[in-house]
């Protein structure tokens, strides 16, 4: 029971989502029920017992444990049992509802499927009807076609008969025509005959030859009487010409034959020479073979044949000719087999060769192999580098030669990016420029201040000097002076239009930066940081007015970088220059 319910639950839950309106409906109906119960009170104070018993009965009929047990004297309502029962009832109710829902859904489904099936049935029925109709149509057509075929066959028969008739007619006409022709021709001949006769009978005078004097024969001979002798002579001459013609033809043929025989002989000789040169080699190759005897026999036979053929040239008779052709045929067969063998050998030899080369000159082989491997490696490396270069070229936007469409796009992107960068850099540069200006102004101010300060200090020192003993102060003044002098000199130097290299050199020449800083710091400890910044600033600003070389570095790099650079300047001049140029 619980299992089935569980299954049902699963099913119903799956169905519930689909049929939410249905559930709503059932709930509303339940509510209605409740209301009706409320109206007609089932249980009052008076009929509790009956109600109880009734309910108990009902419940027991439902197969639930009794709510109320009559335990002797007092009939008490077992609240736990009641609650359990109620719970069970509710559960039952729910389960019932759920099953109802699922049943409803099932029913809907089945009804829809029934509809569908009905539909399909009707459809199929229609189809059946249609196909039946078609079938009848086709049958009808077949019948018609058969009828047509029959009619055509009869037509064909008729036509054939017609053709036969026409042929007969033609044949009869032809025979008639031939007959007529013959008749006409005969008639014509008769007429000719008649005409001839008439002409002969008439003894027409007109037909005559009128020659001044007879001329001699072309050959100068006199004409001869027609006798049997002349006849025989003519025959003889005729046969003579025929004979001479045949003779000439025969001679031609003989010549041709001789030529062909010569060619044949030549071919044969060549064949024999080729084959005989091969034979000993073959023999030496495999002397242990059992076929030695056979080959020797063959050779003998061959020689014999050859000899006989040689004779045949002289003999010139049918027998010899047969022998010659036979021998040629034999040779040819041998040559063919030889060539075939050579073919098969060639493949064999290739294999053997490969083996041989492996076995015999192993060292050279290995060397060769190594060399080849090396070469292959080199080639591979070469190919790789080439590929890399190619890829590099493709990826780098600057390559325009091999720029394909893709690379072009890439380049454009790159360009845009670079442009943006350029812009930002430009902005930065402007900012820097402004800052630099500020700084220079500040520096100027500072120098002024310093001057003022110096002056103040001088006055103050003077005061001190005047106030204190002349000995105690006499040590300090030269030091200070020297310092101030150094500063001034540095400034003047920087201010003066000197080549940046010189400018940069001078501090390193005079002193390392640290002592200088210290010196400056000693001058004004508070401005240490600022001075630290200034020094490179000074050096970079001033050359800006003078040389473009350093200006670039100034414009491109932030002040920190410039500072760093300044350090580098002091350390290694050439290196920094390289960097500049690279930038």
């Amino acid at each position, binding site marked *: 029971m619980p299992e089935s319910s569980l299954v049902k639950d699963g099913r119903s839950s799956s169905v519930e989502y689909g049929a939410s309106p249905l559930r709503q409906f059932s709930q509303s109906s339940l509510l209605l029920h409740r209301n009706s119960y409320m109206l007609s009170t089932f249980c009052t104070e008076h009929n509790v017992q009956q109600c109880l018993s009734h309910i108990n009965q009902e419940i027991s009929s439902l197969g639930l444990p009794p709510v109320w047990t009559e335990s002797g004297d007092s009939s008490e309502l077992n609240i736990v049992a009641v609650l359990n029962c109620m719970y069970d009832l509710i559960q039952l109710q729910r389960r019932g509802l759920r099953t109802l829902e699922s049943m409803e859904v099932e029913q809907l489904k089945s009804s829809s499927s029934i509809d569908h099936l009905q539909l399909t049935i009707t459809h199929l029925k229609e189809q059946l009807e249609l196909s039946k109709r078609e079938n009848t149509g086709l049958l009808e057509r077949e019948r018609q076609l058969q009828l047509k075929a029959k009619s055509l066959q009869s037509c064909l028969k008729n036509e054939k008969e017609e053709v036969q008739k026409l042929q007969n007619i033609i044949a009869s006409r032809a025979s008639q025509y031939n007959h007529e022709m013959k008749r006409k021709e005969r008639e014509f001949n008769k007429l000719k005959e008649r005409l001839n006769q008439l002409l002969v009978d008439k003894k027409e005078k007109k037909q005559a030859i009128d020659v001044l004097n007879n001329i001699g024969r072309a050959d100068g001979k006199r*004409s001869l009487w027609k006798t049997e002798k002349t006849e025989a002579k003519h025959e003889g001459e005729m046969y003579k010409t025929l004979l001479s013609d045949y003779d000439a033809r025969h001679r031609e043929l003989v010549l041709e034959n001789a030529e062909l025989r010569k060619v044949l002989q030549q071919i044969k000789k060549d064949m024999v020479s080729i084959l005989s040169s091969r034979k000993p080699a073959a023999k030496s190759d495999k002397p242990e073979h059992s076929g030695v005897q056979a080959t020797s026999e063959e050779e003998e036979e061959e020689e014999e044949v050859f000899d006989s053929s040689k004779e045949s040239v002289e003999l010139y008779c049918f027998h010899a000719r047969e022998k010659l052709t036979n021998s040629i045929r034999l040779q040819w067969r041998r040559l063919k087999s030889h060539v075939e063998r050579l073919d098969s050998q060639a493949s064999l030899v290739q294999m053997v060769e490969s083996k041989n080369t492996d076995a015999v000159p192993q060292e050279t082989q290995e060397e060769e192999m190594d060399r080849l491997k090396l070469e292959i490696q080199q080639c591979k490396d070469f190919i790789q580098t080439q590929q890399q270069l190619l890829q590099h070229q493709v990826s780098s936007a600057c390559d325009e030669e091999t720029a394909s469409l893709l690379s072009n796009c890439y380049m454009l992107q790159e360009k845009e990016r670079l442009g943006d960068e350029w812009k930002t850099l430009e902005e930065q540069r402007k900012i820097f420029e402004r800052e630099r200006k500020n700084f220079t102004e500040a520096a100027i101010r500072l120098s002024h201040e310093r001057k003022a300060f110096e002056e103040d200090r001088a006055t103050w020192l003077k005061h001190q000097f005047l106030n204190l003993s002349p000995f105690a102060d006499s040590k300090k003044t030269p030091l200070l002076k020297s310092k101030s002098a150094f500063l001034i000199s540095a400034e003047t130097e920087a201010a003066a239009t000197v080549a940046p290299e010189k400018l940069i050199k001078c501090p390193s020449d005079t002193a390392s930066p640290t002592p200088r800083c210290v010196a400056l710091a000693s001058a004004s400890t508070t401005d240490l940081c600022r001075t630290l910044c200034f020094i490179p600033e000074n050096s970079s600003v001033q050359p800006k007015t003078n040389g473009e070389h350093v200006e670039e570095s100034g414009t491109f790099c932030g002040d920190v970088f410039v500072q760093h650079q300044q350090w580098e300047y002091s350390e290694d001049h050439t290196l920094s220059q390289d960097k500049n140029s690279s930038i």
Partner: protein
Amino acid sequence: MNFSEVFKQSNQLCKVSPDGKYLATCVQYRLVVRDVSTLQIMHLYTCLDQISHMEWSSDSLFILCAMYKRGLVQVWSLEQPDWHCKIDEGSIGLVSSRWSPDGRHILNTTEFHLRITVWSLCTKAVSYIKYPKACQKGIDFSRDGSYMALAERRDCKDFVSIFVCDDWHLLRHFETETQDLAGLEWSPNGCVLAVWDSCLEYKVLLYSLDGRLLSTYSAYEWSLGVKSVSWSPSSQFLAIGSYDEKVRIINHITWKKIAQFQHPATVESTKATVYKEVERRPAVGTDEMSLHNITTGSTLFNTQSKYEICSLPVQVPVVKPDPDRANPKIGVSVLAFSSNNHYLATKNDNMASVVWVWNMQMMSLQAVLEQTSAVRCFQWDPCHPRLALCTGNTKLYLWSPGGCVAVQVPTEGGFQVHSLNWHCSGNSLILLGKEQLCLCYMETDEEDK
């Protein structure tokens, strides 16, 4: 190439003597004999009527002039100009007259082919041959002049009679297996006689001199058959042109076909060279089109021609024959072997403007000459492999294995070449117009050297 002046001529009767010394021309009823080298008139004979046929005797001593309308034949002697001979066939009529090979007999065919009259100039004797057949080529003399083959028709059957020309002795007489014999021709060596049936049946029969049937050849049935037959000078080949636009070459040993030459409308043979005549009218400016030019210059209307070698394949102009008419203009009608047996020139009637030259050694097409107009006549040089042809215009065309050339005949009045004849030496060519003739001299380098 040089050209002589133009002479008058009528009926295209103009022949060089067999020895090549004299040129005889007929002008109306006069016979003019000239020296070929000088073109001076040697003799002038006057006949009784307009000459319809003229022929030299084999020894170049006599000239026969036939006037068919009057049934008359007159013979003139070159050696004795005052010698004369007149043969009158009388009321029986005359349709053909020819010399016998010995040059002492004249064979006259009477009207209706009633008989052939053989007149002897030596003895004035006359003999008759009855039942000659009226056909394409019913009479042929062997090349050495010893035999004559004659087609006869008796009792609706074809026969061939072979006569010894010496004394007109009938050597052989045999029936041929033909429905309707159309022609016969001796092989050049005089040993084989080729006999062919009428165009209704493709049948060629080969007879030996002694009347034995050597072979029968038939390429196909039920269609129009043989149109032309020609022996090669070596007697090795017999070329048969037929209505199916093909030439079949038969050999002299087995008498079987060894080659077949087709005349396709599209020339695709890679071995062949196609020469196409291209006409170019001389560019004349409008100012030059003056009356003077038109009246005086025949050159204005003359077009220049040249040959262009076409790249293959080439489409050849074809005229479809009318199937309803008899003797349709289709098929190979003319066959000519070159003197050295190496080439064969043919003409297919439905491609009238094209001459085909075949190489007999390779048995393949060598050249195709496509003219702008229909080819009237072509003839091989008797000494060199050189073909001359004309198309009825003012040009002479020559083909040789080396190439092709078109030459304008430089005569006034627009000399139109209708026919041509080679001189037996091959050095000159006689060009015949409608009523004129002109000699064309070839430049021979060998002679100059």
